[in-house]
C-alpha cells in the first residue's frame, strides 16, 4: 500500500533528496535545519487544545476565532506564520446540528503548528478516500457515532487553507479551569474523528 509517508524507504528517499539539494548548492544543511526547527518547534496538539479551551471559556474569543482565526490566534500567543509563508487557518465549530471532520484527499495537508505531526491514519489511502464518501461509517469505526439527524461536513484541504475543528464543550464541565478544559481535548477531537 502506498498511502503512508512513514515507511523507512520514504525516509531514505528524503535523505537522498536532501543530500542532492545540498550538493547542488540549492540549500545548506543549516538552512534546512533552521526551517524544520521553525516549523516543528512547539508544534503540538496542545496548541489546538489551548485554543479550544479558551474558545469554550470566552465567547468573544470564540466569535473572533470562527470569523478570522489568523487574527485571533495571537490572543493566545500562537500564529500560523511559522512556515515559509503564513497559512490561512479556518476553524469550524461542531454544533448539535452539524459535525465537522477534516481530510486532505490529494496529499496530507494538516495544520502542523497547532496539531503537531499528523497521525499515520490521516495519511492513509483508506481514510483519505473513504471519509469523503461515507464519513458516518468511517467515524463509527473511530468509535464516534454521529446521530442520523446531525449533518456532517467533510473539509477537504485542497489548497492553501488549513482547518481545525472546534469540538463542543462536554456537559458537566462548567466548574473546570481553562487548563483543565484543555486536558479534555484530543488530537482526534481537533480533526473531527472524536467528539472532543
Amino acid at each position: 500500500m502506498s498511502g503512508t509517508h512513514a515507511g523507512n524507504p520514504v525516509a531514505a528517499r528524503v535523505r537522498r533528496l536532501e543530500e542532492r539539494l545540498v550538493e547542488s548548492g540549492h540549500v545548506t544543511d543549516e538552512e534546512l535545519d533552521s526551517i524544520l526547527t521553525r516549523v516543528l518547534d512547539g508544534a503540538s496538539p496542545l496548541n489546538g487544545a489551548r485554543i479550544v479551551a479558551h474558545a469554550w471559556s470566552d465567547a468573544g474569543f470564540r466569535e473572533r476565532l470562527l470569523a478570522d482565526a489568523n487574527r485571533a490566534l495571537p490572543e493566545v500567543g500562537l500564529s500560523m506564520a511559522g512556515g515559509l509563508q503564513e497559512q490561512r487557518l479556518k476553524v469550524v465549530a461542531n454544533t448539535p446540528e452539524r459535525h465537522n471532520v477534516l481530510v486532505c484527499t490529494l496529499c496530507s495537508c494538516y495544520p502542523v503548528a497547532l496539531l503537531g505531526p499528523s497521525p499515520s491514519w490521516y495519511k492513509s489511502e483508506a481514510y483519505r478516500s473513504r471519509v469523503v464518501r461515507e464519513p458516518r461509517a468511517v467515524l463509527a469505526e473511530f468509535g464516534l457515532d454521529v446521530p442520523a439527524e446531525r449533518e456532517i461536513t467533510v473539509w477537504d484541504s485542497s489548497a492553501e487553507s488549513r482547518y481545525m475543528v472546534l469540538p463542543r464543550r462536554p456537559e458537566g464541565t462548567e466548574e473546570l479551569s481553562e487548563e483543565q478544559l484543555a486536558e479534555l481535548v484530543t488530537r482526534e477531537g481537533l480533526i473531527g474523528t472524536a467528539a472532543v
Partner: protein
Amino acid sequence: MSESAEQPQPSAAAPHFAPGDRVRTRAVDPDRHTRLPAYARGRTGRVLAVTGCWPLADDVAQRCAEPRVEPVYTVAFAARDLWGEGAHEVTLDLWQSYLEPTSSAGRAETADPSDPVEEAST
C-alpha cells in the same frame, strides 16, 4: 520580474464569484499536476467563502516563473452530487480557473445525458 509569486496578492485577480453563488467545476482531466480532485470534476456546488488570492498550484508545479494568481474559493458540494448518494456535504478549496458559472452549465446539463450522477440519483 516585477511581482513576487511567493506572497498572496489580493489585487491579482478580481473574484468572479461571491458566497452563495452556484458554480460548476470544469470536467477536465489534465495530464499534469492539478489541485482539482478527480471526484469533484464536472460537479455543481455552492460558494461558501472567498479565501484570498494564491498562486495557481498547477502553474507552480510546472515551475512557471510567474504563476497565475487567482482567487481561491471554499465550495460546498452535496454528497449526492458527488457520489449519487449520501446526506453529508464535502467542501473543497478551488482556484477560480477550476470553476465556471452554472448559467452556462445549465445548458450543458440538458445537453449532457451522459452524467451518471444525475441519472442514478433519483
